[in-house]
């Protein structure tokens, strides 16, 4: 039994250590990127995609926040934009579809990188699939569609 506990103690300590060595530098890099205004630039980068989906351009910023920081932060900005009447219900649904599939991508990718997974592969695969799925949903939910049941 002591052996088993020792195995768990050493193993879990090493895993946490490896994760810390990857997560901390990545989060520092992320704060630098945020401060030099990368979120706004990313929003511009995503604007063609937002257009393809037929969403209002105001949807770009909550999308980027959700992808970079996380689902609950993203949702906060989605609510804010919705309250200011900047987004349609269709925009809300499409944003949510994208974000449930891909959110907090830097943090999540960093954690798996500690186990030897290629970060770029995971990052591209996750964003690519989320973008493609949202595209399919954007074809299914027509802009003039007011049938909410269909969207839910």
């Amino acid at each position, binding site marked *: 039994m002591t052996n*088993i*506990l020792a*195995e*768990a*103690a050493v*193993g*879990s300590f090493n*895993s*946490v250590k490896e*994760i*810390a060595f990857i*997560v*901390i*530098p*990545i*989060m*520092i*890099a*992320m*704060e*630098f990127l*945020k*401060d*030099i*205004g990368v*979120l*706004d630039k990313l929003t511009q980068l995503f604007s063609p995609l937002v257009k393809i989906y037929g969403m209002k351009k105001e949807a770009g910023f909550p999308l980027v926040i959700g992808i970079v920081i996380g*689902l*609950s932060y993203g*949702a906060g900005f*989605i*609510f804010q934009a919705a309250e200011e009447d900047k987004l349609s*219900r269709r925009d*809300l*649904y499409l*944003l*949510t*579809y994208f974000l*449930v*599939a*891909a959110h907090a991508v830097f*943090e*999540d990718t960093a*954690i*798996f990188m500690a*186990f*030897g*997974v290629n970060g770029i592969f*995971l990052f591209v*695969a*996750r964003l690519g*699939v989320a973008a493609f*799925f949202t595209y399919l949903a954007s074809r299914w939910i027509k802009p003039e569609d007011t049938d909410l049941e269909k*969207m*839910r």
Partner: protein
Amino acid sequence: MQRTNPVSFDTLKRGFLSGVNITWKLAKIMVPIYFVVTILKYTPIINWISKAFAPLMKLFGLPGKAAIVLVIGNCVNLYAAIGAMASLDLTLKEIYILAIMLSFCHSLIVETTIAKKIGLSAINVILVRVSLAVVSGMALNLLL
């Protein structure tokens, strides 16, 4: 909201604290799960689980015991799944498959609640995420 700040020592501090915070949150959940799963490995329970889930997990090229990682990841969160994943002896290919499946589908209870607040139905969100995980897991098994 202010979207840009001047880059300063404060930037470094915020990044470091955020990284430490994530590591701490992760450790709090990951370490107990790691202990539980390690102990489980030395009991017959792990064999029952392995046998019971082997046919299903085979679809994704995973051993039956990997079901523990998927269940914990979806019922608790990604950090807990990492704890289980780290304590099981898995190959890199298996870790890739679990990583992609968990990326699309994790913390179903908490995150579905958030999506529901925005207006999507719970069944819809869960169905989409589970499908993405299943399809990507099967695809990766064939590709790798």
